[in-house]
């Protein structure tokens, strides 16, 4: 039966190449946009190189302190010392890393200037994040405590800095802001969209200018806490909150008198959202409004369009429907026939969209628009797309099919 | 009023050629009420279409009200149809989405620069009064009976005060009572000065006209004046 329906659907599509084109165009375009968008969101929020353990990680990025009247509020990352005191002793996690947010800098080679981002990290950084070492190895606790001036660089930076890319960079020196460092490892870079792990050059936190000795609570460091298992995350959050709650308030830090301290450990998505939505409920409402409007337009408009095209197509087939009805086809059969026809065409559109999305994603990855971008169509992206296809086909088929089933036989035959 | 000379009409498809009309010569004078009869497919409707300038002959000359239209372009043909000719069809051809008054008004819409909105509606009302439907002006066609629909169509045909009325089986879809009613309206219009050409299947209707033209297989096989009515 189903095969029969599909055969009919195929014939109908061939009979009206123009409508088939319009329909397919609309469907594949919409689905392409959705797929690329999903893929991009997955790129932003999913667990990907080198943050492959993101799903069992908590991010500690921002400390918010306010005075007793809450007139003055300070939001900033924390100092190395503060994080060492309060994150290191946590018992529930498997491990934790403390590292600075990347900072822009320049290196000079002859008459050339190379722009680069630097980050200061501890040794755990290389265990929490799974970087691929093309050459050499990461620095460990020993290297750090000995105060050796070493650096891990990315493949891209190596190519820019060293004229001979064939040779190994390990053991060679780089000069950043008038300080020399010995390269001990070369890794594949992390894209700029992964703000916590992105950098071109990684230094041990004991390197010059890292400010790890800073006494204040605020600073330029973040932490990632890795749980043994995903289910441990709430326990870790509770343990960390307990420590933060026990911090003495009110207190004085530098010349800032604070009465409240709030540091959150959040999953990546929540952390991202809380920072974006920090502007207060007004901004949140506006953001949600704008996003839902765009989504509505993105899905709603093509859907309405499809329904419209479908309705006019179905009226064109009124006499066919009339004959089928006259020969005793029950309404439900006709309804299903039309819906299946629609889902069928949606899937053809979906297949085209998959190819298009794949092309666009390759284009984005290769354009260098986002350095080291690694957008993919993985299983979850694909499944979401299939689901959207089904929904889309169903929705755009039901309304016209209902209208068709109401068609009176005599009228249908006459038209 | 209408003059057809050596008319020929050929329908061509890629495989066959059909001769719909063959060497028709017909002269219809002002004020005549002519009926055209013949079996299905004999070319009656084609002939009517040619007279109504809805179609062009393959060969021959068509004259309407003294104007030879052979060389006329679309604009001039449209003007003639609009001003000199009124159409009545078997299946009425009313626009279902428009009210009776709006339907009747249509020909006036295609008239250049003439009549403002209110005066157009006034003319439409007058036309509807003539067919006795002034109480149904704001109804929609699907709320009317067949006879009423045909009266609306007649009102539409006469609203532009054309000198020629072409009717394509105007009583074909109606029962005899309604048919007679329509027929008497047409006769009244004819008495008021309109030239009427009517295609019909119905012998009794044809007998109420002045002149009967018979067609068979695209050729004129008879042209008789019914003196009793003239």
């Amino acid at each position, binding site marked *: 039966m189903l095969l029969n329906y599909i055969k009919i659907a195929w014939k109908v599509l061939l009979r009206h190449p123009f409508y088939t084109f319009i329909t397919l165009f*609309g469907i594949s375009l919409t689905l392409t946009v959705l797929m690329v968008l999903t893929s991009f969101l997955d790129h932003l929020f999913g667990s990907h190189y080198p943050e492959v353990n993101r799903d069992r990680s908590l991010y500690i990025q921002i400390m918010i302190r306010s005075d007793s009247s809450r007139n003055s509020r300070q939001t900033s990352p924390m100092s190395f010392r503060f994080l060492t005191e309060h994150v290191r002793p946590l018992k529930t996690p498997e491990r934790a890393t403390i590292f600075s947010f990347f900072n822009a800098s320049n290196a000079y080679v002859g008459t*050339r200037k190379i722009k680069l981002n630097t980050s200061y990290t501890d040794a755990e950084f290389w265990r929490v994040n799974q970087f691929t070492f093309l050459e050499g190895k990461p620095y460990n606790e020993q290297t750090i405590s000995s105060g050796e001036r070493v650096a891990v660089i990315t493949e891209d930076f190596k190519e820019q800095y060293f004229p001979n890319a064939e040779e190994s960079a390990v053991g060679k020196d780089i000069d950043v802001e008038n300080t020399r460092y010995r390269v001990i490892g070369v890794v594949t870079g992390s894209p700029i969209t992964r703000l916590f792990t992105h950098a071109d050059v990684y230094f041990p936190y004991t390197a010059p200018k890292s400010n790890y000795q800073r006494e204040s609570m605020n600073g330029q460091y973040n932490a990632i806490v890795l749980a043994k298992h995903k289910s441990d995350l709430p326990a870790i959050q509770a343990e960390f909150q307990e420590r933060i709650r026990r911090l003495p308030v009110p207190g004085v830090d530098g010349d800032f008198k604070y009465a409240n301290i709030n540091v959150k450990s959040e999953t990546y998505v929540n952390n991202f959202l809380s920072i974006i939505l920090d502007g207060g409920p007004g901004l949140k409402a506006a953001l949600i409004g704008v996003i839902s409007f765009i989504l509505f337009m993105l899905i709603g408009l093509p859907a*309405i369009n499809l329904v419209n095209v479908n309705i006019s197509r179905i009226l064109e087939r009124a006499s066919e429907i009339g004959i089928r009805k006259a020969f005793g086809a029950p309404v439900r059969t006709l309804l299903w026939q039309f819906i299946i026809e629609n889902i069928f065409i949606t899937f053809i559109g979906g297949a085209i969209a998959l190819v298009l999305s794949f092309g666009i994603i390759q284009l984005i990855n290769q354009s260098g628009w986002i350095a080291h971008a690694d957008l993919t169509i993985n299983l979850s992206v694909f499944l979401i797309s299939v689901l959207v296809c089904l929904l889309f086909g169903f929705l755009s088929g039901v309304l016209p099919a209902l209208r068709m089933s109401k068609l009176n036989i005599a009228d249908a035959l006459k038209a | 009023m209408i003059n057809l000379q050596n008319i020929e009409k050929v329908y061509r498809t890629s495989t066959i050629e059909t001769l719909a009309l063959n060497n028709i010569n017909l002269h219809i004078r002002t004020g005549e009420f002519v009926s055209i009869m013949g079996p299905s497919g004999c070319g009656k409707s084609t002939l009517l279409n040619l007279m109504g300038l809805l179609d062009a002959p393959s060969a021959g000359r068509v004259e309407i009200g003294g104007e030879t239209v052979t060389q006329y372009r*679309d*604009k001039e043909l449209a003007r003639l149809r609009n001003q000199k000719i009124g159409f009545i069809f078997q299946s009425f051809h009313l626009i279902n989405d428009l009210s009776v008054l709006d339907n009747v008004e249509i020909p006036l819409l295609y008239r250049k620069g003439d009549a403002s909105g209110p005066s157009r509606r006034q003319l439409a009302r007058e036309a509807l009064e003539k067919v006795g439907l002034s109480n149904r002006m704001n109804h929609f066609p699907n709320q009317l009976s067949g006879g009423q629909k045909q009266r609306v169509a007649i009102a539409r045909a006469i609203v532009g005060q054309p000198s020629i009325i072409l009717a394509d089986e105007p009583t074909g879809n109606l029962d005899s009572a309604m048919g007679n009613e329509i027929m008497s309206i047409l006769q009244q219009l004819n008495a008021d000065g309109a030239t009427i050409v009517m295609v019909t299947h119905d012998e009794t209707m044809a007998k109420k006209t002045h002149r009967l033209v018979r067609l068979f297989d695209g050729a004129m096989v008879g042209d008789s004046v019914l003196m009793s009515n003239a």
Partner: protein
Amino acid sequence: MIRHLFKLIWNKKKAHTLLIIEIWASFLVLFGLSSLIVFNVSNYNQPLGFTYENVWAIDLRNNQDTVAVTAKMQTIMQRIRSYAEVESASRMSSNYPFSASTMNNNATHDKATAMAYLFVADGDFAKTLQMPLTAGRWYTPADSIGKFRPVVINQLAKDELFGNEDPLGKVITSGDGQYKVMGVVETFKSKGEFQGDKPTIFEQLNENAPWDKTVLIRVKPGTDAVFEAKLVKDITSMAPEWGAEVTYLTDSRQNQHNLALVPVTIFLIICGFLLINVALGLFGILNVSIARRRGEIGLRRALGATESSISWHFVGEMWVLATFAVVLGLILAGQFPLMNVFDLDTGVYLKAILISVVVVYAIVTLCAVYPSRQAATVQPAVALHEE
């Protein structure tokens, strides 16, 4: 005739609902897009207020070095000014032009108040950025002796705080401080061409304070990375703990442009696809509906409609549909200027509405032209015989 078309559409409004919704939604999408574009274009047309070519920003960080920061800073400034390659140098707060950071504060004068962008800079700022003054003069070190700290404001700040009053010599209150206006510049679009001018106040830098350690330098044209490397090396030899990062303003300007243009481009592409989609849909629907209405077309032809009046009829119907949609859309879009959403200029919304209306009509016309032509070629006789 227009009345006729309106009646025809109105009486069939149920069948046309979805079509109207579709055009309505397209109108709103267009409105969003054109607001964004009009906003950016109108910003772009305002003068920038300064020049940025050959200007570098040196961001200095003292890190953990807290010993004699001001003295070191002054030495570094002297050294920078001594280079032959440096035409002019100015020390300022970290929010240098096109940078990511901003400072703003409420400023008041009498009862007028304005949320103003604040820049702390020394006396060479205007010279380094080649900013023309429209009134008064830029402050000099000699001005720091007075009771009030000297400031220069831009025209917008002047308009909001002083109206038609002459601001020179008047006092502005901001935060805990009081400031005396020394001069007025025209505009200062610190975030690049695509951001609108904002009320701006330039406050004299305190050379004895340890903060505000960004240095803007104007170098001679053609100065390259060799000098830059030397500069960084010299600074970090004078203060070994310190960090020095050099940014070309042309680069940071590009970043700001990307920030403004990338969303516009993405939005433009998506809207473009949406509109193509809608246009094709309308085209298809119109084709079907004309095929279905061949009888009616024939009738109209029989009643005296010319070919062109049939064409216009269908184009007209689409215009009427579009008018319904646009009127509905205007009710919504009209709220934006009325309620001052997103704090944009009313003119931006009005222009955007105008553009969207024109484009919507253009799209429906484009979609209607071909099917309407087709409709006009329908032979009256053929059309009537179909039923």
